[in-house]
């Protein structure tokens, strides 16, 4: 029993990392329907900025986190302006390729400047252990889960309650109509990218601290998994991204812990495909019927 509970804790902490990345992902996806392959790499950049801030400038956790979020927000806006905006009326696959280009550019520019070797963070957060019976919970695991939930609530609030959020939803449903209603579409998309990228940056710093290991290609797999999580929960749905992230984390943990760890990723993908076949728009996704 203890072991199972421990595995659930493992799964939740892994899942909350996927959720953290997936939240920003689903937001950007929601507004321009772009599989933003560069999202995972912004997360990587965020991790490196946090690394530089804590290691070389000796900033504390919060200043480093804020700095990383700001830089990533600006980076996200620049990427959108330079690489995606000119293609807003092109086919979506074209933008997808551009996103892949941006992703490769970020990865290999980083590798060129800092090298391919992994780096490790200095200790900036306590990793005090708590024992609940036989189950161990790390303080950092709690930080990450709490941050993910807090960000989810914040995002949900922004999207549903604020004026900017309303503009975002309007743009995501119909760009042209939103434009006609006086919404500044470009600005709204820019803000969405800024928020989504800032979240990715925050995730990067947290993961850097938690696992104590960053490298220029660290964003590739989590970026993909976050996309899977977003699809799993229903693309564009904020609670969906959270649930999707947690579900995938728990699933991976259970397969590795009780099944065959060699088939972990395959099992996750198989389960995803199964879910999609049963529920083609993800768990919380709206099943949009095309009007005939």
């Amino acid at each position: 029993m203890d072991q199972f509970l421990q595995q659930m804790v493992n799964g939740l902490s892994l899942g909350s990392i996927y959720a953290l990345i997936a939240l920003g992902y689903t937001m950007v996806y929601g507004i321009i329907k772009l599989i933003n392959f560069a999202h995972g790499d912004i997360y990587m950049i965020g991790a490196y900025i946090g690394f530089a801030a804590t290691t070389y400038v000796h900033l504390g956790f919060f200043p480093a986190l804020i700095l990383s979020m700001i830089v990533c927000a600006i980076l996200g806006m620049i990427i959108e302006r330079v690489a995606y905006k000119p293609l807003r009326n092109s086919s979506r696959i074209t933008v997808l390729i551009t996103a892949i280009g941006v992703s490769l550019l970020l990865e290999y520019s980083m590798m060129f400047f800092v090298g391919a070797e992994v780096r490790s963070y200095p200790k900036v957060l306590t990793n005090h252990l708590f024992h609940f019976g036989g189950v161990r919970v790390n303080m950092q695991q709690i930080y990450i889960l709490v941050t993910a939930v807090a960000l989810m609530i914040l995002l949900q609030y922004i999207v549903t309650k604020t004026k900017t959020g309303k503009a975002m939803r309007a743009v995501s449903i119909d760009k042209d109509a939103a434009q006609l209603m006086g919404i500044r579409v470009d600005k709204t998309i820019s803000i969405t990218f800024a928020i989504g990228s800032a979240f990715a940056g925050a995730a990067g710093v947290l993961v850097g601290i938690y696992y104590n290991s960053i490298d220029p290609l660290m964003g590739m797999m989590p970026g993909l998994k976050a996309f899977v999580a977003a699809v799993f929960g229903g693309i564009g749905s904020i609670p969906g991204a959270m649930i999707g992230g947690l579900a995938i984390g728990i699933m991976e943990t259970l397969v590795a812990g009780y099944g065959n760890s060699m088939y972990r990723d395959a099992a996750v993908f198989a389960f995803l495909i199964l879910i999609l076949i049963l529920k083609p728009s993800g768990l919380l996704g709206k099943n949009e019927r095309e009007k005939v």
Partner: protein
Amino acid sequence: MKKSLVLFLLLAMVVSLAGCSGSGDKNGGADANEIKIGINYELTGAVASYGESSVNGILMAFDEINAAGGINGMKIVPVQFDNKSEPAEATSLATRLMTQEGVVAALGPATSGNFMATIPVAMGNKVPIISASATADKGVTVDDKGNVNEYVFRLCFNDSFQGVTMANFAFNNLNATKAVIIQDNSSDYGKGLAENFKATFEAAGGTIVAHEGYVAKDKDFNAILTSIKGKDFDVIFIPGYYQEAGLIIKQARDQGIDAPILGADGFDSPVLLELAGAEALNDVYFSNHYSSIDEDPLVKEFIKAYKEKNGVEPNAFNALGYDLGMFIADAVERAGSADPEAIKDALAETKGFVGVTGTFDMGEDHNPIKSAVVIGLENGVQATSVKVDPN
């Protein structure tokens, strides 16, 4: 129309630039005072860090040799390409180095798979290739039928030597009878080590109670560790590289698993200490080429020089790369000419080459005959070293 023109010019520029740099090197080949050595390594892609480390070591060796006047007055000119960590690219580059760039020998790639992809090219073009880190047992220096690949050399252990060494170490020195294997399932290195460890350990009378796997760049191993924690075992063997091994050790110790942890030369990197932290690195043993507590002046000097140049301690790839650079230079010097055939013979006839990673003779099967050390860590510092000779 204008846009397409700009685009076309841009493309033309890149292609012609690439062409220029290629042909520039070719003209250099005619110079009798230069000796061209190919460097075919993973500088981008999944295993870029190994390639990058190896090339660092090689270039450091070349710099030292050139600073000291070169080989018989000839300067070494490294011809360096990136194979993107892809076997097909490695093949293409080996061909390019041998047929276009006119190198006398090619170094790399770092991983067995990519290195093996270049073997047919070397055999076909009769230019020697040497790897410092291709450890696979089969298909490297000896082909499937048991014939030695005449132009293929390496200066590292093969997987069976290290796997067997660590299995014996576990069984004899640590008195372990039950082991867990957590294997890097994405590299041939991990697979080769795991197979040999398992076979030897079981033959000696031990049992493998769990055999788990992970893939490179994984960061979370808690699921595997929680599941093995409930099992009864004496040691954990991690056939893999320091990037993941460091994290596995840290997370295992965090979970309260204090069984000895074993590995191979993939552990040898200062990054292991950074990732795992000093307090986690107790009761950790791995086989390696040399130990930093070694009193050998060559080792000490290399570590000091490397630290001065790069600001960090060298890892196994750096050291092997450095030796690789020195080794090829030594062979060229002994061959007395820039003829690949003569260099190949010199490589095969190596006797008593003294390197940082050990002193060795080149064996009949083109594997170096050298001893390993099993290093024990205490608080992240190398505390013990046991020498193991090849049988």
